């Protein structure tokens, strides 16, 4: 899997090289030294600014850890701001980062609108921007993360397999969205709806916002279970949040009876949760690999010397199903190590 990403990144690099001005005369005996010199000079001492939605969860922690390692390996510096789920603080942090003029900006958008104008402003200020997982309505140089539409579709197909026509189940599904206007929620919801449209026996009995909060997911699910004791499946748009839903199902004594699906990239925690049977299946993306891709793509952008708005590309993360006993152990990273 890792290889595919790297290949994709390499292909991307070629594309950039074609688009931007290559250093003159890269051929002949001296070309290797010149390429080295160009690559090193383009990256050395550069600053990568990174703005997650919050820290303290495995996903953003491992991203930050790996990005810092990868950036340092290339002679770059990573600065990070933690708004702690506050959109106000996030926006202020973004504005101040733009004011600080980093060489590359990496953002994790709380919703599709909030940062849009600021991202435009960043590009106008000459800062290339990479968006991770949660994309904005304003597209920038690169998006790195899953194709959420595909994630939704795959989750939907799995639900149909378990609860759809011919399964003998009720076909009732509860959906716990994240922040409603997050790119993650919007994309997964579209994919889910597209998948469910193909099987009329599926009934979405509840589709509510959990706002990435496990407590909220728990409360919603507990209520839904009382209204629909024959619920067939619960789908959550983030595994960390969906644990709350799973706990509610467990408390109701319906673990195993109600299937629990989620997308996520939480490493060890996801592995433990599928192993314990709390979550039936997690559709996972390799978070450390995403972090590497961010720095790689960023490195290419910096070397290309292209204008920040010269291109709009996406590097979709490869998706992996995880279920009890069946997953790639490489996905079980532990960010605390």
């Amino acid at each position, binding site marked *: 899997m890792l290889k595919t990403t790297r290949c994709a990144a390499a292909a991307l690099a070629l594309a950039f090289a074609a688009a931007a001005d290559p250093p003159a005369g890269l051929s002949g005996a001296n070309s290797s030294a010149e390429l080295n010199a160009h690559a090193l000079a383009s990256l050395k001492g550069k600053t990568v600014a990174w703005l997650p939605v919050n820290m303290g969860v495995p996903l953003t922690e491992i991203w930050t850890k790996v990005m810092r390692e990868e950036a340092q390996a290339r002679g770059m510096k990573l600065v990070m701001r933690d708004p*702690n789920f506050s*959109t106000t603080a996030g*926006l202020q942090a973004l504005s*101040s980062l733009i004011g600080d003029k980093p060489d590359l900006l990496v953002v994790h958008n709380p919703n599709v609108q909030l940062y849009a104008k600021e991202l435009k402003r960043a590009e106008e200020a000459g800062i290339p921007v990479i968006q991770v997982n949660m994309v904005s309505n304003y597209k920038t140089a690169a998006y790195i993360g899953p194709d959420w539409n595909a994630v939704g579709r795959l989750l939907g197909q799995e639900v149909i397999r378990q609860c759809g026509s011919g399964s003998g189940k009720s076909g009732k599904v509860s959906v716990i969205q994240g922040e409603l206007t997050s790119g993650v929620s919007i994309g997964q919801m579209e994919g889910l709806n597209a998948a469910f449209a193909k099987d009329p026996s599926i009934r979405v009995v509840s589709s509510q916002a959990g706002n990435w909060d496990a407590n909220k997911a728990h409360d919603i699910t507990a209520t839904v279970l009382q209204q629909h004791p024959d619920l067939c499946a619960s789908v959550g748009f983030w595994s960390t949040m969906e644990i709350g839903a799973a706990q509610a199902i467990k408390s109701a004594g319906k673990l195993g009876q109600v299937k629990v699906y989620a997308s996520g990239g939480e490493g060890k925690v996801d592995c433990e949760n599928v192993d314990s049977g709390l979550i039936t299946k997690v559709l996972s993306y390799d978070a450390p690999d995403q972090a590497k891709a961010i720095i790689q793509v960023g490195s290419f952008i910096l070397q290309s010397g292209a204008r920040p708005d010269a291109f709009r590309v996406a590097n979709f993360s490869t998706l992996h199903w995880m279920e009890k006993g069946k997953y790639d152990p490489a996905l079980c990273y532990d960010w605390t190590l």
Partner: protein
Amino acid sequence: MSSGVRYNGALMSGGIARRLYHRWSLRLFLSELLAKRWMEPAIPFVLMLALIAYFGAVTPNYATWGNARQLGREFAEMGFVVIAMALVVISGGIDLSVGSVFAFANLTALGLFQIGQLPVLPVIAGTLAAGAAVGAVNGVLVGYFKTRPFLTTLVTLIILRAVVDLLSQHYSVQLAMGSNTSALWDFLGGGALLGIPSNLLVLGIVGGVGHVLLSRSRPGWHLTAIGSSRKAARHAGIAVESTLCLTYVASGMLAAAGGLFYAARLSSTGSDTGVGWEVNALTAAVLGGVSLSGGRGTVARAVIGAVIVFVLVNGLVRMGFPGALTSTALGAVLLFAVGVDVKWAKNRVKAIQKIYLNPTVVELPPAPSTARDSGTPFAENDRLRDSEEIGLDQVEGPEDVILDRQDRLYCGTRDGLILRFSGPRFEQREVFARIGGRPLGMAFDRDENLLVCVGGMGLYGVTPQGKVYKATDETNRSWFKLNDDSRLRLADDLDIAPDGKIYFSEATIRYEMHSWHLDGMEGRANGRLICYDPATRRTRTVIKDIVFPNGVCVAHDGQSLLFASTWLCSIFRYWIDGPKKGKIETLIDNLPGYTDNINRASDGCYWLALVGIRSPAFDLAMRNPGFRLRMVKQIPPDEWILPGINNGCVLKFNEKGEVLESLWDPGGRKHATLTSMREHKGWLYLGGLENNRIGRIRLPDADPDWNGFDDYWRKGKA
């Protein structure tokens, strides 16, 4: 007889450093500074500047125009919410729903604009109306139904938040994907006028107007009054219900205005929009010096607090503090602010009191002897012992007495009345006028109007029919003085020059009638001589910085003015006409007592009242400001060394300043604290600041027809 004594008490001995030290005092400056109303938010203001300076120093690119603009744009919306909160807190309540209203307005504005596809102006109107409607719900409940603001707005907060969540559930994705645009909408969200972000500009206008309305208009005062005491405000006739209701409506509209700009700027319907803003707003308001208990605060203070909170949070975010720590820091700041708010409100007045009194050196030579066998004109005698009593127990504190052409006797009293005694033995008592304040010195003008210095009010007049009118209650304000000294605090005594100009003394501008003795503890040149010209109705200060100017008397020739300085035990002459016009001379100094009113005598001399008699101990205390300061601070007032006012003494002196004789009531059995005497048709009438009577004694050698009015206004006429 005169030596180097100056009316302002300038020291005669010591080096220039000592003189300057005792003339100007840093404590004095500080105490007057603290007493200013605009000093209340001094700490927050300094904190704000310090924070900005600090982050400017440690953060790169902070102190740049571009960054300031960006910060201003981000700040403005919070500014609206803080003002919304502050208004309600000042009214004695609290509005916890501001954050929800903000989120609701954001959603409303986006809904009207993106889904309703309305033009911008109706969107603005609709959004503000939505905020006003929520405010009206709060206002009607709190104002008319008298529910508790805390619980009421808490419920509004929860209900409205639920409404926002429900609406978001249905519309937020649609809103987030909306693409309606308009130039005006973009201007609201990201435009600027003269380089100032649009939202900050509107905040500035709203804040400025709000500040003036709140601090300088009737509705604003009503609001503050209600916040101080709802009951008292009702008793004062303020429409408490409707004012409160409108306050909440205004609060709702302000929060909605914040939400509107937020919507235009970000088009974001994030679920945490406005969450927790009520706490931030409350922190900001309290931090800025808006008291949680109501009745104290201004819009400017709220904005100062808002800037502090904003700069602090923004600075911590910039410095890369983990998010949770930033919230903790804000909580700590709120705790600190509330603590300081309570302590400051409680102790500010005390702190001012502690440093308000600033004694200085008063150096008097040894007093002349008043012993019975001393042979001086001051020798004690019993000439006032057998005075006749007038109005015994019918008057309270006739500081000054005066008689009219019909031989009726007038005096002011402690309760703000002018009494008139008439009849052969003055047995008839009537209330001639009710002025209020503390009537002190009196004089008749050419038209027989009675002019009265009223402590706490100014210079007033009473027509012969008993109608009270105000002559003046303010003078020109002196430059470079912190205390606004234009209002008259303690007009003391007056006299009227031949040209009709009224000269009067204001004993002190630092103390009130009830604390005049503290001015004595201070011994500082806090008084002044003021002239009011009835012809032009103009008032101006003639001499500034006089040590407790008291009695004022126009000399017999009408060319000069005599005034007494109580703590300096001296009389000065101020030339108002003739070749020496404008000059000030020392006429008498080093008297054995504290000089009070001066009045003309029938033989071309002057009468002078001594309100107290000097003692070596008190003289020594006056030389030692440090001693007096310790005394005032460390022991209760009834144990202080004070001027001896348990004596009655009247002196007579001539035009050259020679004291001719004295009349005593030793021990002050009948006339303690003797402050005034008035000669009239062969009698001398005696008034006292604390006395329960007026006295009179026969003056056997005096002209039995002489009276003050004729001497002033009918000289040389029939």
